[in-house]
């Protein structure tokens, strides 16, 4: 059964690249460009993993992360934060808010895919 990956980013070209990579790896994808879209998507789409940009118009990636972690039904969802702001403070903040991993832009596609697979495999293992 294929995993669902939600891509949350406001940069169209990055979204295109991420969609391509996820679909190539066999995951089902959905895209959200703002925080509100993202939260709506999570309810409908039931993602196993979210690729979450921090710099979003309106609600920030941190806010979305926090909301997901505060929602009991969504505790299983893996979150990988993607951001162009690579400072240590933001990495710590993201992890503290409950992100499973934190990847800075520009990213290596291989490293990203490895992390995504790692998170989803880990998830399956725990489930078992």
């Amino acid at each position, binding site marked *: 059964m294929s995993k669902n990956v939600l891509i949350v980013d406001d940069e169209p070209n990055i979204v295109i690249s991420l969609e391509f990579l996820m679909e*190539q790896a066999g995951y089902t994808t959905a895209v959200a460009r703002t925080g509100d879209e993202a939260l709506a998507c999570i309810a409908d789409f039931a993602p196993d993993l979210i690729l979450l940009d921090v710099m979003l118009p309106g609600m920030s990636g941190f806010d979305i992360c926090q909301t997901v972690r505060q929602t009991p039904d969504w505790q299983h969802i893996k979150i990988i934060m993607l951001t162009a*702001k690579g400072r240590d403070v933001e990495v710590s903040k993201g992890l503290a808010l409950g992100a499973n991993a934190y990847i800075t832009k520009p990213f290596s596609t291989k490293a990203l895919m490895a992390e995504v697979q790692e998170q989803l495999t880990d998830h399956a293992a725990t489930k078992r």
Partner: protein
Amino acid sequence: MLAGGTIFLVVLLYMSVLFTIAYVGDKRADAGRSMIRNPYVYALSMGVYCTAWTFYGSVGRAASTGVGFLPVYLGPTLMAALWWVILRKIIRITKDNRITSIADFVGSRYGKSTLLAMLVSIIAVVGIVPYISLQLQAVSTSFTSLWTEPGRGIAETTAMFSVRDTAFYAAWVLAAFAILFGTRHLDLTEHHEGLVAAIAFESIVKLVAFLAVGIFVTYGMYDGFGDIFSRAAADPDLRRLLVMGDGVDGSTYASWAWLTMLSMLAILFLPRQFQMQVVENTDERHLGKAIWLFPLYLLLMNIFVLPIAFGGLLYFPRGTVNADAFVLTLPLAQGQSAMALVAFIGGVSAATSMVIVTTVALSTMVSNDLVMPLLLNFPPLRLNQRTDLSGLLLAIRRIAIVAIVMFAYAYERATGETTSLVSIGLISFAAVAQFAPAILGGIYWRDATRTGAAVGLVAGFVIWAYTLALPSLTSPGWIIESLVNHGAFGLAYLRPYALLGVTGLDPVSHSLFWSLFVNAGLFVIVSLLTQPSVIERSQASRFVDVFRLAPEGLPLRRGTASYAALQDLLKRFLGERRTNAALRTYAHRRGLDWETDIVEADADLLQYSEQILAGAIGSASAHVAITSIVHDEALGMDELMRMLDETSQAIAYSRRLEERSRMLEEKSLALETATTELRQANERLLELDVLKDEFISTVTHELRTPLTSIRAFTEILYDNPDLDPARRSEFLAIVLRESERLTRLINQVLDLAKIESGTAEWDLSDVDLRAVVLESVQALHQLFAEHNVALELDLPTQVPTVQADRDRVQQVMINLLSNAIKFADAADGQVAVTLQVDGQQVRVDVADNGPGLDTAAQAVVFDKFRQVADRRSGRPQGTGLGLPISRQIIAHFGGELWVESLPGAGATFSFTLPIPAG
């Protein structure tokens, strides 16, 4: 008639009793069991006011002026009411400053002035001498009266027996008695307890004697007061004595007023009163009782004056017996020898008490304030090298006593018994009244000066001498008689009894009026015209503020002296035993050993020594003596320091405090300002730091975003060589576009940095904005078409050129147009460009029909990397640097770039460029 031997024996016996009392009094004082430390003895000792004049003279005056004798006792009674205010202050000052006499008091007040002390001493001696002579005369007259037949006048008896000789012997006896009582001690501030006890006893004796005679006359010879007074009223001669102001000399209201005032002053300033009331006072609280006890004493002393006077006048044929002797002659006439003897003893006690106390007081002045200062300043005597001067001091005093008494005897001879007792007494009263301005002014008026006091005293004294003392010496044939009658140099307005034509006053009132008027007037005027010296100022405050100052204030002295020299000096005046005792006391108080621990006499010890010495030789002499051994003590500097200490210190201190608090305030203010500035600077730095941080962070973010796409697609393309061509092309295009975006961003960041740092190159030329607008529109033609945005141009045919860099202005224009296209309404996009001349500038408006900007957005739209979200993409396009750069460019050419917008009604970006003048 009494035998001369009996009288002599009785007098001897009385003197022995008196001396025993004095001796016991001194012994008990030495043993610490004082006889005189109670208010009753104190009040009785004040009774020294009542002299032979009171004892005999009151009756005499009553016989000639009726109630005219009363003012002399009313004055003190009135003054007693003011004692708590005036006398208590004088006592306190005297004790605090260890003052020994009234001369010392005046000298000390005016800067420890030797000159003033001398002046007061001279006035006191000269002024009091007639008073002492009065006592001598009284004693000799009473002795003679007692010895001769009653009913025979004194004029007759003088023929039989030399009254002069009696007076001469009386003088010697009194002088001897004064020496025995008054010059045993040296430190005058250690009270003459024996003397005071004896004087108090004498006060009792004379009161009892007078009351006895009074009762004898009133109830023995007559039937009480009513009988005597009704008989007097029946006699036409005597009746006029019972009313006031009936042309009788001394009984007019004016005379009453003047005499009352004179007596008020006398009770304060007579040397013997000062001695008893002030110097010998042991406790100023005793004054509280004396205030009513002393007037009571005076009342008792005067109850029988009128009955005795009337009794005598009624009993003896008119003019045959001197009324001054009624007290003696009435009992004698009745054959009551014992009663006469009692009266005689009373008179003797009144006379001796006065002479003893007066001579002790005067001799103290003479030795301390007159002779010592002269001797100390007289090098040939080498007083500084004498080992013990205490003996010399006592010798001076003893000689002074004898000299004063002999002087009085000489005066008595010069005046004869023609003058009545009372008149002579009033002459002395008027002399000491001259001290009133200097002393009363001195203790209440800070600005009174030494010169003022001296000028006033001299003038008052001269007028007193001319108008009162000199005429009293008159006897037939003397030059003085013509002086009195015709004035000096024959000038009528200089007549002593009618100076400047003032008549209608009795001689005493007349003299008192002029002398006090001139004295007080000059004292005030000269004081106001002269400046007090530094030491005067300091002494003035010690006197005037005596109740406000602590008894031991700041050390008045500066400088130091050798301890050995100080010891030598003290021993010279005080003797070895007293010196050692004083130093031991001083050292003990400070926990030191007086023999080993003190090497140098500091200011404190010098001050102490000066006070001790002042008790023996007076404050002025002590000051000079101590000053003579102090090292390097420039007097001016000393005085200056003293002034600084006493008068300026408080001011200086408060000024220092003020200064300090002001400085602190200033400092704290400066500190606060600095802190505020620093804090603001820090905040600004922090802000700038945050801004820089934010800027770098933002730039990094802006650079990373296209780079992320480029890297991701490059990797995808690399990893998927067999990607279908359509996608491959799509991905490659993205990479290309993102690369361009990256380049543009980098260029703009650099561009902005250059403009902001002022290193940008500007290519100035005449720019036709119409052409620039058209070119820009042309360049963006494709974009308008792509976004389906309609363009409306409103351009005049010609506008003036402006000075600018054409490419830069076009960059601004394209940026504004791009933004307009980007934000124009998606469905029906419209952009309008307007060019117009607006005053001295050309204005360009670029309006779109997009969503517009709210106020907050308008405020930040020109900030770097502030992009307003593009509703359509959810993310703004562009770099976020276009508008900031445009604004910098327009500002560079002296124009403005701004935005006007209403949310929902589009936005209009406008800029202006100035038209060059001419």
